[in-house]
């Protein structure tokens, strides 16, 4: 069965290794943090646990985006919205857990509602005092939004740039909406000052380690699910829609449903990432809806290698580690570095680190894909004259001569 395939297939060894590493990390890092004395060399300080836990959530988000972008060609510039919605659902649960320990000591209303003179809890806050309900919302709210949004967009065949821009409009509209204090989500300040999750203090090292482990395990699970999805016939179909959407239609497939399923699954994954993220960073606010955040997620996936499973994870970890390092060491220059990375990756590493690694190592499959591209000429500076220039910027980096994205805007 699927698991049999999992262990048997040599080409998928990378996935197996990734999952094993993630599971191992989920066990070892908390151990090194909790059981090793801080003076020992192997001790992992708590802030590293919190930091890497955060990165793992970003990695999950990047993986979610990659499912739709890398495998289905839908460049969503609004995935941050799903992430944030999942985060808000978790944040609302955490807010309710504060109970009477808020500064005003109101057992029902969160602090921000008290000083904004709310008399009672808005209806959409009901139920969030139960973890299971919040967990359900983490899945359903982003999923439902993606489903409704995707249902409209894909059915009307909004593709390519148009889709990217309306996803951006979606997250921008949500940003503005959540900024409004009248919405009852804490406005600009968002939700913060969390105390407990499932009865454990969110500040405690043990809870942090547990959250870290949960993130790692969830990511491992997501890797497995993505791998299984992508490897199935549906996965082939997904890529077929990416490469030649009209062909799939004339074969009788409903391309809109194919996309919608991937989009919804991806949104749910992003929502889970957000839900894991919030207790680890201790705040969720509308800033997460910022369109620039969503664009940054795209670059994580691009750096690591889109259309691969391991790539987005590597990309998210590397870029964020770089960001942490740069903002500490060279704060004035970190935007130059990030901007330069965007440009360099799109120009020089269109397949990302993993894709580059593959062609470097002469991975058989990648070589086959590249052979045609090489025929077309490998010099990125001078596009071959015999091809239409616009589509001829094909470089060794491309998978093939056909553009993996939907058609250009013209």
């Amino acid at each position, binding site marked *: 069965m699927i698991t049999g395939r999992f262990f048997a297939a040599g080409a998928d060894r990378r996935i197996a290794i990734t999952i094993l590493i993630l599971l191992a990390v989920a066990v070892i890092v908390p151990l090194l943090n909790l059981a090793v004395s801080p003076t020992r060399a192997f001790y992992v300080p708590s*802030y590293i646990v919190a930091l890497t836990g955060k990165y793992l959530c970003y990695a999950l988000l990047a993986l979610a985006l990659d499912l739709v972008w890398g495998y289905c060609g839908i460049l969503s510039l609004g995935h941050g919205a799903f992430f944030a919605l999942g985060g808000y659902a978790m944040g609302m649960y955490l807010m309710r857990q504060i109970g*009477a320990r808020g500064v005003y000591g*109101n057992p029902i*209303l969160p602090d921000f509602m008290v000083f904004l003179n709310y008399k009672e809890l808005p209806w959409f806050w009901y139920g969030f005092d139960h973890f299971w309900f919040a967990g359900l919302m983490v899945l359903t709210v982003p999923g439902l939004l993606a489903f409704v949004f995707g249902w409209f967009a894909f059915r009307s065949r909004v593709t390519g740039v148009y889709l990217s821009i309306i996803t951006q409009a979606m997250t921008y509209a949500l940003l503005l909406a959540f900024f409004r204090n009248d919405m009852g989500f804490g406005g600009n300040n*968002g939700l913060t000052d969390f105390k407990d999750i499932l009865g454990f203090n969110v500040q405690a090292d043990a809870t942090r380690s547990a959250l870290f482990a949960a993130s790692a395990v969830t990511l491992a699970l997501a890797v497995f699910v993505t791998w299984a999805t992508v490897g199935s016939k549906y996965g082939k179909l997904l890529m077929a829609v990416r490469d030649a959407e009209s062909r799939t239609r004339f074969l009788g497939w409903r391309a809109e449903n194919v996309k919608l399923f991937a989009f919804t699954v991806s949104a749910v994954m992003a929502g889970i990432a957000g839900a894991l993220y919030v207790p680890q960073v201790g705040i969720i606010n509308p*800033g997460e809806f910022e369109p620039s955040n969503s664009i940054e997620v795209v670059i994580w996936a691009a750096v690591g290698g889109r259309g691969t499973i391991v790539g987005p994870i590597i990309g998210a970890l590397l870029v964020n580690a770089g960001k942490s390092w740069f903002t*500490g060491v060279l704060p004035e220059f970190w935007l130059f570095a990030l901007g330069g990375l965007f440009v360099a990756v799109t120009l020089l590493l269109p397949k990302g680190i993993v894709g580059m690694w593959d062609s470097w190592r002469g991975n058989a499959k990648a070589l086959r894909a590249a052979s045609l591209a090489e025929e077309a000429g490998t010099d990125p500076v001078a596009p071959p004259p015999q091809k239409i220039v616009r589509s001829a910027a094909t470089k060794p980096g491309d998978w093939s001569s056909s553009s993996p994205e939907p058609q250009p805007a013209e």
Partner: protein
Amino acid sequence: MRGNFSTITKMFSASVVAAGLLMSAPARAADDTIKVGILHSLSGTMAISETTLKDAMLMLIDEQNAKGGLLGKKLEAVVVDPASNWPLFAEKARELISKDKVAAVFGCWTSVSRKSVLPVFSELDNILFYPVQYEGEESERNVFYTGAAPNQQAIPAVDYLMSEDGGSVKRWVLEGTDYVYPRTTNKILEAYLKAKGVAAEDIMVNYTPFGFSDWQTEVSAIKKFGSAGKKTAVVSTVNGDANVPFYKELGNQGIKAEDIPVMAFSVGEEELAGLDTAPLVGHLAAWNYFESVDTPENKKFIADWHKFIKNDKRTTNDPMEAHYIGFNMWVKAVEKAGTTDPDKVIDAMIGVSVPNLTGGYSTMMPNHHITKPVLIGEIQADGQFETVSRTPGLVMGDEWSDYLPDSKDLISDWRAPLSCGNFNVATGKCGGKGTN
């Protein structure tokens, strides 16, 4: 070509590895210096305000080192960039405290950044100095609020407008950016105005989004509201970037300060530097400091600043003074405690009194807020403020507003034995209002 790509990949991977190594390299624990964290955004939307504060802190630290440092050690500034990203504020705060082992952190701007780092400071038990005016409704053991609470800015400002000198204003527009500070401030002001006998129909409240730039409709609504035959004023809690287009529109639509004055709480010298102030002469701002204040301390501060920043045109502003006060208080408290251990310093802070730049002393109160004079200034053609009113004495920051129903019974006192940020005088218990 292929070769080239491999080289690039190699270089890339090499740099990634190098970056990783640098990251993981343990911070060299230098025992001969005391580290001070500076947590201000140097990029992103907040950089416009916060970069100046970072420079001001560097200057203060330089000066202290020139005076021989602190406890016989040199001070060392650790600057990080939280990039106007709130979760990054928390991450950077954690990094400053855990990795760099700073003795105290000066930073944040806007409540959300402060709220996002609060848990970090209380968990890791360190000190944050927050230099910006804010909405109050908070008092944390690990935070010292050197900016103004609403009663140190908003209420005296409204008092001035109601006075004869201020034009005996009868009708009020509360115009703000839609976030917590304006919301809370306006709630407090509404309650305050109503308590002073202003009718509900004489108050108009309006909110706009961050970075709002098309003010035509709002300004004409103000004009309309102001034509009811009563003296009208605007109390503006409009934030940052949105101010320039707001004032430009006011000027162009011919709203003169003599007719409808605008009293702002977030417009300082720095914001005015981006504006031609000639059409705005007479509009007001309430702060605890103006660059134009004529005292020897201020003159020296400005001269030092210009020298440090190597630009005579750079202005000083209220949050800079707040850092000036906060930093000097911290220095004094450390000297008093004889250690930089945050626990001891927090206790030593209360009661510390240092000169402010407006010719008096500011004292740290038990509620972790400070005493300050409140100045009302009118915008001048040269981009400065002219002080037109000044509270007779110092005003003590009131963290829990008396004009909000849920906080009027609360007080904060961080001295032993009370040691509580939200003590309820009605119930005699620490921990807020209790049941609703």
